[in-house]
């Protein structure tokens, strides 16, 4: 791009083009550069979230005043946690699955694989949970 700019300036110096024409050429070059960079930005995959944030705010409490909780947990911890599930002995895993089924949560923990957690993390970037009540505000999001 710098080379093309220099060529235009040289053409002006050699009086091959007028200053106005050179200005138009440089503007066209700038536009081309802008389109190229924006196309590149569109191709780039969106940044993956690094932290899970939980914010809880309550308005004036009668006894002690307002309360505020701000928690930031690295997403990496989620990955490490999933790896830990692979260490659970099969008989314990069956028991946990059974209890989850009884509680109405049909999740088979033995099917939880690291690649699933990667997919989940990819989609977490778009997730925001906002709960607004008269006296409490809860926000869960990834950043």
């Amino acid at each position: 791009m710098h080379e093309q700019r220099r060529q235009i300036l040289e053409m002006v110096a050699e009086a091959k083009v007028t200053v106005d024409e050179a200005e138009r050429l440089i503007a066209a070059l700038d536009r081309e550069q802008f389109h190229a960079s924006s196309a590149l930005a569109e191709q780039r995959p969106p940044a993956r979230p690094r932290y899970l944030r939980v914010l809880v705010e309550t308005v004036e409490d009668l006894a002690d005043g307002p309360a505020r909780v701000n928690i930031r947990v690295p997403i990496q911890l989620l990955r490490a946690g999933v790896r830990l599930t692979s260490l659970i002995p099969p008989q314990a895993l069956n028991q946990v699955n059974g209890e989850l089924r009884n509680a109405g949560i049909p999740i088979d923990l033995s099917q939880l694989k690291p690649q699933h957690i990667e997919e989940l993390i990819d989609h977490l970037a778009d997730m925001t949970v906002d709960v607004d009540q008269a006296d409490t505000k809860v926000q869960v999001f990834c950043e």
Partner: protein
Amino acid sequence: MMPQLVTVRVHSGGSRRIRLWIPVLPVLLLLSPILLLVAVASAAVCLAYRVHPGRALYAGWRLVSSLGGTRIEVEHGRTAVLVSLR
């Protein structure tokens, strides 16, 4: 990477303030004899439950390593507690 510094701040109203900066590595070195015992006991438990001790150690290490960047901040009235791992 494993967290290097744990910061604890407690502010319980008035002029009472506690600020602690705990360097993780020196504390681990100081506690190494106890950690060794814990490691032996953990290995025994792993073997009893037919879990490979090496895999358990690796998973535990990954868990501790991923704690860096954790920040927990709780404020209630005039009391505030902050725990940060860096």
